[in-house]
């Protein structure tokens, strides 16, 4: 926190009661936001609070249904991203969208290369401007190299350079730090501050409060698609922001129940897949919740998929209750009592266009059949049991899974796998993109399952979730297991360090 005194300046961008719905689903109920020049504004809210929808409306990806969008006081209506770019708005996404085979310079000037008198692309002018921008930002990126192989952090800086060369007055960064290491975050913040000092308006979306308090001067909170409040950063606290975001206290967020830890259920030894993960060894006991932490792309989901058999591995072994579990056969894994709740419920977890009850019974369809035959009555009977245990909210059992809310979809995936009566439950990002109430329910469920003696391997990118739920925490970084902590040893600092900082380990 360096400059606490923000002189009032005309709003660079203003949103007032903006509404956007997709079919019957209201994504943005009432979005309001005021961004000023020379200010870094934080936008916080739970997943599904409407932040991304709001950003996409500003970026011209979506058109609002109603409400006001004003740029420098003038009402605007973008029907395409090129219009919003031309108006001086730049959006930097978590995953940059660059052309990997083109050079850094070519990417910065894609679609609007400067030309000389006879209409040829003026490479010299392009390169000179790219160099000047990088110098201003104080970063060392070779403008002549191809983008392929650059880190996410460097790619984001290229997007920022692009925005600067476009002279964007309004810059929006949507969770830019999610995949960055500590050093890279610091460098990004230095760049953000210099952009602020150039009198630009910045919006910073993040789930990490320490970053919000370090970088921003104002914060707007959203909840359930609506604007809640805007506060100067030095007049608020983490606790206040959390309660504004959640709308109630979060004491019951991580209801960890005591469970008897029993025999070893899963033993993984030396699991390796070239270029993805290497030499992974760990075990999970009955009744134990083992958290698997790390950054996005560290190879955690890939390990889970290899254990379950959706992907293959090249070396190593998986043993279940002491018996070897052959790889590459999810059907066998399921029969032997392994269940995987995958990270992407819409693509991997559910058949969105199929009904609720068919989804719940998909993995147990052979078990359910009588004389080899299967009909809706049998499916509905089984589905009812699991839907009501997990309190799935749905219009009917034949309603398409895609019509359910994110939280209910996640319950559906959980129900589908609990129906297989697993001994080992692997959950990958079990609460991503679901509302707070359901999140607590999912945590309670996982805790209860552990208490009943199921071995649980929980992959999560949310540190509080891992720390709040796990008996033991494993940390992965760039395909390797880098640390293991007991529940008492696992602090945010320890885990983050193991997940981000390269150690002098011999390969």
């Amino acid at each position, binding site marked *: 926190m360096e400059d606490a005194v923000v002189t009032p300046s005309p709003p660079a961008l203003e949103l007032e009661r903006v509404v956007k719905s997709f079919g*019957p689903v*209201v994504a943005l109920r009432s979005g309001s936001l005021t961004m000023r020049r020379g200010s870094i504004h934080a936008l916080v809210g739970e997943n599904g609070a409407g932040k991304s929808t709001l950003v996409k409306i500003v970026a011209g990806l979506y058109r609002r249904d109603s409400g006001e969008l004003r740029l420098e006081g003038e009402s605007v209506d973008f029907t395409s991203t090129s219009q919003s770019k031309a108006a001086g708005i730049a959006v930097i996404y978590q995953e940059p969208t660059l052309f990997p085979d083109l050079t850094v310079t070519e990417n910065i000037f894609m679609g609007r290369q400067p030309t000389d008198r006879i209409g040829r692309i003026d490479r010299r002018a392009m390169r000179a401007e790219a160099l000047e921008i990088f110098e201003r930002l104080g970063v060392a990126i070779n403008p002549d190299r191809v983008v392929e192989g650059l880190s996410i952090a460097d790619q984001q800086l290229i997007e920022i350079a692009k925005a600067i060369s476009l002279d964007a007055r309004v810059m929006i960064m949507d969770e830019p730090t999610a995949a960055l290491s500590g050093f890279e975050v610091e460098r990004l913040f230095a760049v953000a501050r210099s952009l602020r000092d150039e009198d630009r308006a910045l919006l910073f979306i993040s789930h990490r409060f320490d970053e919000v308090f370090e970088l921003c001067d104002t914060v707007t909170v959203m909840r359930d698609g609506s604007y809640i409040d805007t506060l100067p950063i030095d007049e608020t606290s983490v606790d206040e922001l959390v309660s504004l975001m959640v709308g109630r206290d979060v004491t019951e967020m991580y209801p960890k129940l005591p469970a008897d830890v029993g025999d070893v259920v899963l033993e993984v030894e030396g699991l390796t897949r070239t270029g993805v993960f290497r030499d992974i060894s760990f075990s999970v006991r009955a009744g134990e919740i083992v958290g698997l932490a790390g950054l996005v792309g560290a190879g955690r989901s890939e390990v889970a998929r290899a254990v379950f058999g959706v992907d293959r591995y090249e070396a190593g072994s998986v043993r279940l209750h002491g018996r070897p579990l052959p790889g590459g056969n999810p059907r066998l*894994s399921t029969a032997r009592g392994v269940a995987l709740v995958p990270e992407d419920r819409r693509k991997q977890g*559910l058949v969105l266009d199929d009904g609720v009850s068919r989804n719940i019974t998909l993995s147990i369809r052979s078990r359910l059949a009588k004389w080899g*035959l299967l009909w809706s009555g049998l499916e509905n009977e089984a589905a009812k049991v699991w839907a*009501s*245990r997990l*309190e799935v909210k749905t219009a009917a059992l034949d309603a398409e899974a895609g019509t359910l809310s994110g939280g209910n979809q996640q319950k559906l995936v959980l129900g589908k796998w609990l129906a297989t009566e697993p001994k080992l439950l692997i959950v990958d990002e079990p609460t991503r993109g679901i509302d707070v109430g359901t999140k607590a329910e999912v945590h309670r469920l996982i805790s209860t399952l552990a208490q009943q003696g199921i071995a649980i391997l929980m992959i999560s990118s949310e540190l509080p979730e891992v720390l709040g739920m796990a008996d033991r925490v494993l940390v992965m970084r760039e395909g390797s297991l880098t640390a293991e902590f007991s529940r008492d040893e696992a602090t945010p600092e320890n885990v983050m360090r193991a997940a981000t900082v390269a150690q002098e380990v011999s390969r």
Partner: protein
Amino acid sequence: MTATGAAPARTYRNHARPAWRRALLNREAAIIAILVIVYVVSLAVVPNFSGPLTITYLLRDVAPILLIALPMTLIIVTEEIDLSVASVVGLSSVLTGLLTQAGVPFLWAAVVAVLAGALAGVLNGFLVTVVGLPSLAVTIGTLALFRGIAVGLLGTTAITEFPEEWTSFARSNIPGTPVPTIMVAFAVLAVVFAVVLHFTPFGRALFAIGLNKEAAAFSGIDVGRSKFLLFVASGAVSAFAGVYFTLLYSNARGDNAMGLELQIIAAVLLGGVSIFGGRGAMHGVIAGVLLIGTLGSALRLANVTSDIINVITGLLLVFSVISSSLLAWVHDRRAAAIGRRRGVSAPSSRTP
């Protein structure tokens, strides 16, 4: 195990829509209705259509399409396609003819032909599921390959000598009815395929594959193996249709059933199976085949030329494809409109 403690048990309705709407407002019911209308109108308007001979000839002619449409439906439900079926008919016809000519008992010739068809399906299935090529490309290739082999084996000649008892059996009717005997075989196969598709775990897997391959794989479904089996079934049934075709016209030629694959696929799509996979029902497909057959037969009797008949079936198909897209579009628009009204005037009181 009670997962979430003492919660009041929720009750669930089985269906979102009342039974009559589910039964009547769908693609299959619409096609059946159109079939009935076309049939009744033809009875009234087209001279000679009402005779029992019409039914006999109509069913004889559509029998190969009906047969091959069964496995084709399952294949399209998994979002694949088999364009080589008509070439397999040709190949099977030539094999049956050559073997019979060489003195092999007819039944054995037919069995060999069906096995050869299954083998052709193995090749398709191998290229699609093991090598991982798109079925559209693979079966365009094998369409040419199998046809080439068929024509290569027999040249431009035809074999027309077949055991009398078999040819007359192929042309016989179920005693006391105008319905051809082949319909017994079709009925048995139709029941088998319909039950497999709609009432077995394997059938559920096929729909899941067609709607979301990845989720199917995550649910322990062996996507490759399932598709492989379908291609083999498609080859075998096509070859069986080829044997029937040969007997019916006492004619084994390399170019038999040329272009039949497009009629089969058209009928399957008309019957309500989605070309994008995951949607369709067997009764709709059967109605679709019969609709195209009835329309063709009625128009021929009314002395309409085959060019015009092609134009009409083509239009029917285009319209049926458009109509489902159109319905989906109207549905989306309505849902969006409802959403907008709710969003502005009545914010739902969902607990945060």
